[in-house]
C-alpha cells in the first residue's frame, strides 16, 4: 500500500523506538491505570509527539536515545533482520552467499513490523494491520506472560501426570515426541483482547485494539493419549495444569476438554515452539481463552474438582456489574471479526477502489459468514471468505469497495456455524453492565468500527459516541 510506503521511515523509527524505548522507565500512574487489565496493563495512545520527534532520521536518534540494549553492529536493522549495504544496481554484482545467515534466515531489512508491548511488559500485541493470510509469523505471535519468559533446558524438563490416575507418569520432550502426533491450525486469543474498547474508543490501531489474537499451526500429542497411558480413576473430573514459569501459572481444566481436542504441543509453524509460547511444551485448548493453555507445562494433576486458583478467581473471571456477580470458568472465545485494512492510523490516498480485508474467528467452530458495512451499519453485504475455512481458526475475508471520498464508517460482523453473530457494544453492555476500567471487560467481541474522514485518515470510533 502506498500509504504504508510513504510512512515507512517514520513507522520504522517509531516501531523500533516503541520496541526498545521505555524498558525500565517509570510510567505515569495515569498511563498504567488507563489499562488495568491483567492482560494488557498500561496502554496509552501511540505518542504522536514521539513519532514526530523521531520521524525520518529518528531511527538513529531513537536507538541512540534509548541506550538500554546493546545494538552495536546491528543498530540499523529492525528486529529480526540483518542490515546489508544496498547496491546501486543489484544485477551488477553478486549477491550474498548461501550460509552467510548461519543457516537460519532473517526477514528483509526493509520490514519492521514488531509486536507492541504494553508499558508494564506483561503483554505484546501482533501487528494485525500488516498481516497477510491467516498465519501469524511465530516471531509476531502475541504474548502474555504472568512471570516473564523462562529459559528452560529441554533436557531437564519433565511433564508429570498424577492425581486420580492409575499410573502416575513423567515424560521428557523426547518421550513426548515419540507419541503419535497431530498438527492443527488454530487461533489463540487472550480473554482480555479489545476489552479496553467497551465503553469508548481508546486505542488508535487494530494492533492495539485486537492484537492479542494470533494463528499458528500447532503440532503435539492429544492429551487424551497421555491420559490413556496413566488411566483415570473414578471421580476424575478436572485437571490442574501448571507451568514452570516464575508465576507457576495454574488453571483447572474440565476433564471433557482434556479427553476431546486438548493437545500438549511442542511445535509451532513447523519448528519448536518459541520460548515466549511455552518452550519446550505447552497445553493447547482449542477455542478457549489463551491463558488456560498453560505454557512451559510441567504438571497435570487429575482431580475431582477445580482448584480455584488465583487465575480462575481473582483474575480471568467476568464481573457482571449489572448484578455484582462474576462469571467463572468462562472458557470459550465467541465469534469475532475485525477489519485490518483499512484500519486505525492508516490514511487512504484518495477516493477509488480498495479491497477491505480482515480476520474472523470463533472458538465454537467454523466461520459461516462475514458481513461488511460501509455505511455505519445501515446496510450489510457478504464478504468473500478465503478457503480453506477451518474450525477454530482465523478466516481471512475480503470485500471490494469503491470509496467515493466522503466520510464513511466501515464495520465487519462475523457469524459462526452455530448461528451466533457478533453483538454490538450496546448489546454487550446491556447484557453485562458497564465497566469503566474497560480492559477488565473480558470476552469483548463487539463489532469494531473504523471511521474514514474526507482526507482519507482512518480512526477508531465507538458507536456510542
Amino acid at each position: 500500500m502506498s500509504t504504508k510506503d510513504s510512512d515507512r521511515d517514520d513507522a520504522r523509527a517509531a516501531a523500533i523506538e516503541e520496541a526498545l524505548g521505555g524498558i525500565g522507565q517509570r510510567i505515569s500512574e495515569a498511563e498504567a491505570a488507563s489499562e488495568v487489565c491483567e492482560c494488557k496493563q498500561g496502554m496509552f495512545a501511540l505518542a504522536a509527539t514521539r513519532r514526530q520527534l523521531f520521524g525520518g532520521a529518528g531511527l538513529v536518534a531513537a536507538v541512540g536515545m534509548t541506550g538500554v540494549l546493546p545494538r552495536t553492529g546491528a543498530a540499523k536493522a529492525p528486529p529480526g533482520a540483518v542490515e546489508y549495504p544496498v547496491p546501486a544496481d543489484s544485477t551488477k554484482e553478486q549477491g550474498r552467499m548461501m550460509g552467510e545467515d548461519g543457516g537460519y534466515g532473517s526477514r528483509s531489512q526493509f520490514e519492521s513490523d514488531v509486536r507492541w508491548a504494553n508499558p508494564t511488559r506483561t503483554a505484546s500485541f501482533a501487528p494485525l494491520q500488516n498481516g497477510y493470510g491467516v498465519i501469524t509469523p511465530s516471531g509476531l505471535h502475541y504474548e502474555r506472560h504472568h512471570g516473564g519468559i523462562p529459559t528452560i533446558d529441554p533436557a531437564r524438563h519433565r511433564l508429570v501426570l498424577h492425581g486420580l490416575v492409575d499410573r502416575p507418569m513423567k515424560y521428557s520432550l523426547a518421550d513426548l515426541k515419540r507419541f503419535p502426533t497431530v498438527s492443527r491450525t488454530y487461533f489463540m486469543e487472550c480473554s482480555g483482547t479489545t476489552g479496553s474498547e467497551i465503553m469508548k474508543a481508546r486505542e488508535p490501531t487494530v494492533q492495539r485494539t485486537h492484537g492479542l489474537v494470533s494463528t499458528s499451526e500447532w503440532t503435539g500429542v492429544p492429551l487424551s493419549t497421555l491420559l490413556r497411558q496413566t488411566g483415570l480413576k473414578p471421580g476424575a473430573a478436572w485437571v490442574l495444569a501448571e507451568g514452570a514459569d516464575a508465576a507457576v501459572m495454574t488453571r483447572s481444566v474440565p476433564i471433557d476438554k482434556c479427553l476431546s481436542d486438548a493437545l500438549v504441543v511442542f511445535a509451532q509453524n513447523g519448528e519448536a515452539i518459541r520460548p515466549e509460547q511455552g518452550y519446550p511444551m505447552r497445553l493447547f485448548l482449542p477455542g478457549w481463552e489463551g491463558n488456560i493453555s498453560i505454557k512451559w507445562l510441567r504438571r497435570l494433576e487429575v482431580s475431582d474438582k477445580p482448584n480455584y486458583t488465583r487465575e480462575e478467581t481473582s483474575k480471568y473471571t467476568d464481573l457482571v456489574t449489572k448484578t455484582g456477580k462474576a462469571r467463572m470458568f468462562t472458557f470459550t472465545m465467541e465469534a469475532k471479526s475485525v477489519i485490518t485494512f483499512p484500519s486505525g492510523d492508516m490514511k487512504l490516498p484518495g477516493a477509488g477502489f480498495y479491497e477491505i480485508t480482515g480476520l474472523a474467528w470463533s472458538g465454537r467452530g467454523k466461520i459461516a459468514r462475514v458481513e461488511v458495512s460501509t455505511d455505519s451499519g445501515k446496510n450489510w453485504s457478504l464478504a468473500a471468505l478465503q478457503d480453506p475455512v477451518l474450525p477454530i481458526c482465523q478466516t481471512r475475508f475480503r470485500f471490494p469497495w469503491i470509496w467515493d471520498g466522503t466520510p464513511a464508517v466501515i464495520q465487519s460482523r462475523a457469524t459462526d456455524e452455530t448461528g451466533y453473530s457478533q453483538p454490538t457494544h450496546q448489546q454487550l453492555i446491556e447484557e453485562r453492565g458497564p465497566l469503566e476500567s474497560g480492559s477488565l471487560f473480558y470476552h469483548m467481541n463487539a463489532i469494531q468500527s473504523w471511521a474514514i474522514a474526507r482526507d482519507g485518515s482512518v480512526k477508531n470510533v465507538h458507536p456510542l459516541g
Partner: protein
Amino acid sequence: MCTRSADRPASHQRIWLLATIVLLVVAAQTGIHAQGYPTRFEFGTPATEQDISAVAIAIPADGAGLPAGSGDYMKGKAVYETQCAACHGTDLMGVAGLPNMPAGTQLRLIGGRGTLASKNPVMTVESYWPHATTLFDYIRRAMPFAAPGSLSADETYAVSAYILTEAQIIDKSMVLDAKTLPLIEMPNRNGFVPDPRPEIFK
C-alpha cells in the same frame, strides 16, 4: 525387451511378477492396518512420590495438602514490610507508577467491598477473592515478586494472616495454619456464577 510380441512366456512371467508384487503390497498394507496404533506406549517413566512431591505444590480451595506450620498478624507484618510493601504499599493500597509493574489499582490488596455492582469496581483480596486458601497458594507459588517461591510455610501463613486482618476478614489474634485457614469465610464467597454463554442478544 517387452516389444517382442512373440515372446509370450516372458509376457506371462511379467504378469505373474506384477500379480505377486500387488499381492505382497496388499498383504503388507493389511499387516500395517491390522497392527494399527497401539493404545499403550512403552516410553515415559513412572512418576515416583519424589517426582510428584517436588512439583505438586497446589492447594485446592478446601485446603487439602496445606503444609505444617503457622503464622499470625504480628509475624506477618514483619514479612509484609520487608517482602511486599515495596509494591503493594505499606497501607496495602498498591504503589502507583512502578516501572514494568501493573497499575497501583492492580496491586491493591484491601478495600472495595460494595463496589462490585458498579461501573468502577475495586477488586481486591478483600472485596473479590472467594477463597482464603487461594491467597496462600498464590503467595507460596508466585510471590514475593523479586524472589518467587522463597517464603517458608510459616511466613506464608503469617503474611496471609496480616493481609486478611488488614482486610477486616479475620481478627488480629487469629493464628493461621492448615486447620484454620480453610475455615475463613471470604466476603465474596458467593459472588461467582457459572458461565451462561453463549449469550442471546436482544
